């Protein structure tokens, strides 16, 4: 049996449907590490951590910053339930950097009231968004040159 060439990907968050379309490959940040998914993958269910989702549709790679979610892989489609997911083009790089600086300052302040676990997660989230935004711009300049 020939393997399908494309797989249908849906990324949904409580607020909206972020992406829906056919893609050639997906890379997701699972709890146990980054995981690549190609068409014809065996059924799989995994919890996602904080990081960047990358997927390639028609040769163009898109990047989505994701913080916590689930992925269900079926042979012909992938459903990604994310708590938060932002397409790299929607990310405000400046705001992400500000959020990161703010959270890092809190961590460094040594204030006993700071929730360290939550603040560290905030740093991770901000970093993932910055990464997603930067890799998207990097790819764009590469394509242009």
């Amino acid at each position, binding site marked *: 049996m020939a393997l399908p060439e494309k797989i249908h990907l*849906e990324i*949904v*968050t*409580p*607020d*909206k*449907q972020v992406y829906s379309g056919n893609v050639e490959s997906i890379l997701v940040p*699972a*709890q*146990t590490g980054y*995981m690549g998914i190609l068409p014809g993958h*065996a*059924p*799989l*269910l*995994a*919890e996602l951590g904080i990081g960047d989702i990358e997927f390639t549709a028609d040769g163009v790679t898109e990047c989505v910053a994701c913080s916590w979610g*689930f992925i*269900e892989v*079926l042979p012909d489609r992938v*459903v990604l*339930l994310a*708590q938060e997911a932002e397409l790299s083009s929607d990310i405000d790089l400046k705001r992400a950097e500000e959020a990161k600086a703010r959270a890092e300052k809190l961590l460094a302040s040594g204030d006993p009231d700071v929730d360290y676990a939550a603040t560290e997660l905030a740093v991770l989230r901000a970093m993932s968004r910055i990464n997603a935004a930067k890799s998207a711009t990097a790819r764009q300049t590469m394509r242009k040159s």
Partner: protein
Amino acid sequence: MANVRDIRRRIRSAKNIQQITRAMKFVSAARLRRAQERVLASRPYAKQMVAVLRSLAARVPTDAHPLLAQRGQVGKIELLVITADRGMCGAYNTNIIRSALEFLGRHPGQVELNILGKRGRDFFRRRPYPVRSEAINILQNLTFADAAAIAKDLIEGFAGGERDEVWLLYNEFKSVVQQRIVLERLLPIERMEDPEGDGELEYIYDEPPEKIFSTLLPRYVEAQVFRAMLEAAASEQGARMSAMEAATNNAAEMIDSLTLHANKIRQAGITNELIEVVSGAGSL
């Protein structure tokens, strides 16, 4: 008999009210559109969540999880009532509060209330029912984080054994002119069966399925609460829009009938004067 000037004054005030209600109608129409979009946008997530949970439930011994466990003896019940923050929306608040009172009547002494919305808070503040928490002004700019915080509180109360059931009471958004009051049990979660029966599909689990299942369930509850709040927010705007529409029409009707009345009186006055002039001339 009322004189023309009094009636004119009443017409003027009816016109003022009509202007206000019409403006409110447009405002809530605009808000309704936004709220409606959010409800529609949140549906795929909830739908997919249920689909994933269903397919998991077929594979995992689900009875073990605390959020699914039925309690034999139901003692304390928690009820989350979602009302509006503002009035001027017809029977919207009255209906939901009446349903809440019915629920309280059915389970005397067992229910603790969680209230969203100023209207509900004001109503229950003056009455002898136990209120555990209240939140106001959050439906207007609702975020998932707000809903998640409320859901977390509900889950903790349930899992900690302080309460045996948690119910939701809200208005479901059917259409712009139609809302339906929904009372549903949030916790313990209804057992989910796999209706399609594709249970033979073997998943690779990145982590033990029990672990995935137990992290997914609280998220499911959060998504449910979020959806209920979005539905309620949209319903509120829908109810307000139709109430204001009706009020604007009523004002128009009132203006018409008052204008007619005023004209009749004016005419009667003129006729009287004419008769006086004619009969005065005849007697000369």
